């Protein structure tokens, strides 16, 4: 029997109605997330990667709205007979969403100082989440919180739990945020640039921790980052976003070895590498796109070196190349072109 995806996003579009016009932040995004998958969403500033997952977690407030699409979560939360079914989160009311968020979808944000409340202790914030979603007493919740803190590698958790966020270091705060996200054993973990605000040695610790917990809790993860190096390490599947659209979706090996979209290609050629000596970086000319009332064309068109006449007329569809490889391009790069120039 084929494995059913836990989360299936279909043609999702999120727009923001502004006085000057509509900002089309996310356009026509589709993906499936099965258990044990780590989907990496990679893109530059303004590519819509954060808005995309915020929509999935129900965190889009007016003037933002879901213009189109479905977010299907396979869950038994609302079933009367206890059977799992697909629930469309896009149509869910705000009050019902709080039964999903935190319990079925856990979130980790970029900056741990702003995602923790500075005037409550770690214990308050962890117990609140657990008690809200599960029928346990505060004492039991506290026990569980201490155990969770131990799992995320906080030394002396029974003492540290009564600390305030400012008493912890940046890396420890992010560990606490991860513990809160995992506290109700969610099926889906959404991590929005979890390591960006951290130093590189601490980042390595957090990434190692997340990989370990991923195995332990077996939740599927959506991992957002702008850093291709981080995504190469974490993800099993990668979606490259640009200007609100998914440009290419493929397994992690395909993205790095046989990228087909000109943007993915250009992106890989312009990052400095630690592991090899490069002769030059190849910058992508031009500026990132403006998201206000964009034309219905490929957003990468003004910066693309492989554009053809067809690009001026229609927006290409997300086409399937192989079983797992999708590309949105009229003139994709043939698979044999070398990506990085290495100095001999």
């Amino acid at each position: 029997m084929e494995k059913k995806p836990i989360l299936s996003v279909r043609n999702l579009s999120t727009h923001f109605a502004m006085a000057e016009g509509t900002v089309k932040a996310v356009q026509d995004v589709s993906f499936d997330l099965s258990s044990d998958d780590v989907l990496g969403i990679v893109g530059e500033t303004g590519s819509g990667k954060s808005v995309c997952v915020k929509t999935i977690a129900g965190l889009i407030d007016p003037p933002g709205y879901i213009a189109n699409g479905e977010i299907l979560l396979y869950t038994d939360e609302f079933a009367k007979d206890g059977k799992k079914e697909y629930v469309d989160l896009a149509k869910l009311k705000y009050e019902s969403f709080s039964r999903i968020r935190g319990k079925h979808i856990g979130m980790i944000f970029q900056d741990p100082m702003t995602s923790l409340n500075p005037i409550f202790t770690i214990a308050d914030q962890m117990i609140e989440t657990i008690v809200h979603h599960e029928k346990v007493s505060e004492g039991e919740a506290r026990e569980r919180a201490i155990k969770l803190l131990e799992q995320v590698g906080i030394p002396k958790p029974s003492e540290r739990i009564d600390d305030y966020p400012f008493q912890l270091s940046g890396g420890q705060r992010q560990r606490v945020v991860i513990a809160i996200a995992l506290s109700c054993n969610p099926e889906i973990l959404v991590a929005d640039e979890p390591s960006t605000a951290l130093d590189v040695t601490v980042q390595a610790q957090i990434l190692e921790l997340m990989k370990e917990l991923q195995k332990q809790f077996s939740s599927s993860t959506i991992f957002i980052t702008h850093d291709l190096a981080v995504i190469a390490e974490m993800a099993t599947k990668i979606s490259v976003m640009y200007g609100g659209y998914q440009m290419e979706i493929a397994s992690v090996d395909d993205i790095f070895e046989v990228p087909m979209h000109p943007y993915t290609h250009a992106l890989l050629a312009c990052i400095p590498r630690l592991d090899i000596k490069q002769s030059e970086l190849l910058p992508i000319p031009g500026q990132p796109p403006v998201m206000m009332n964009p034309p219905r064309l490929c957003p990468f068109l003004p910066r693309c070196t492989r554009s053809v006449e067809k690009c001026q007329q229609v927006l290409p569809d997300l086409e399937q190349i192989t079983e797992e490889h999708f590309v949105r391009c009229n003139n994709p790069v043939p698979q044999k072109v070398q990506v990085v120039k290495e100095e001999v």
Partner: protein
Amino acid sequence: MELLNVKGLKKYFPIKQGFLIERVVGFVRAVDDVSFSVDKNKTVGIVGESGCGKTTVGKVIVRLHEPTDGSIIIDDLDTTFYFLKKKHAEKYLDDKYFSSPAFSNGAEGLVPYQKRIYDAYVKNSKDRKKTIDQLFHKLSEKRKALRRKVQIVFQDPMSSLNPRMTVGQMLSEPLLFHEIARTDKEANSMVGQLLEQVGLKSHHIDRFPHQFSGGQRQRIAIARAITVNPEILVLDEPTSALDVSVQAQIVKLLQLLQEKMNAGYVFISHNLALVRFISQDVSVMYLGRIVEQGETQEIFDNPAHPYTKALLAAAPVPDPKKKRNRKDLVGGQVPSPINRPSGCFFNPRCKYRMDVCVKEYPPTVEIGKNHQVACHLFTSSHSEGGKEK
């Protein structure tokens, strides 16, 4: 040719406590005994994690901070005292100042520095007031000349550009001040050329910073730094606020400009891959000190210091086939620069820790051609030890 030589540079920030009567209770030793040199047409990379003092080094070189000790030699001129404040210098008229409690408890946070000025200029002169006046007259000229030699580009172009000034105003100000351009008209045409040089259009001259994208703003900041044709350019994380596609553009621009101006770059960054790409020499800093220093190729291929190894192992590589070298990863985090560990600052996190590491800070030793490291593993008496524990 050596453009910049930094020797034994120190910068301590005093921590003051108390209301009305302030006392110095300690120091943040942001930079502690840093030495390096920059040659013409060469780039020196300074890498380290946040709090290691790399930005402070850059700021001291351009004199946004006064050094506590050490010397900064630019073009064979010792520029260390150029930015001395007159109100400070006037205190030296009185010998008693140097025996006062305010001085001995380091209230100014500048003890060795002040003492050196006193010894060099004031101590033996007959008319001290006149000496100091003369000194300051000379210094103001020298300061102006120095500003033409050293410039800086900051990390975040949104906060380093004045939002109320147009690009034209910002760029013509240094031109007029340094009398590179004599009239506004002349300045304007030079600003146009500068903008073209950094990849913008000359009609951008009347725009405000908010009308540009992040990458374009950084180009303006670079244009402002090169208006005076500096010999040394300090680049303090110039691309870390930018997207990777734009980062590559800026890096390419900086390389082009270096060829044109023959300037020496001090490239400060936490991004190891970028430093590897852009610089010929690298200094790795940890808690205010340089732990390893040498040619880029050598440092990245044969890192010697356990901290350098840890940094390299921690940095992810954009290749799913390459797994990180877990053996060299370290736990814990950077200690506070106020209460530094005894001995080698890295010892609480180091896997190769020996008894001597807790007792004394390791001396810097040469372990190869142009490759220095400060680690007890490489000092002669302990080179036998260092087995992994």
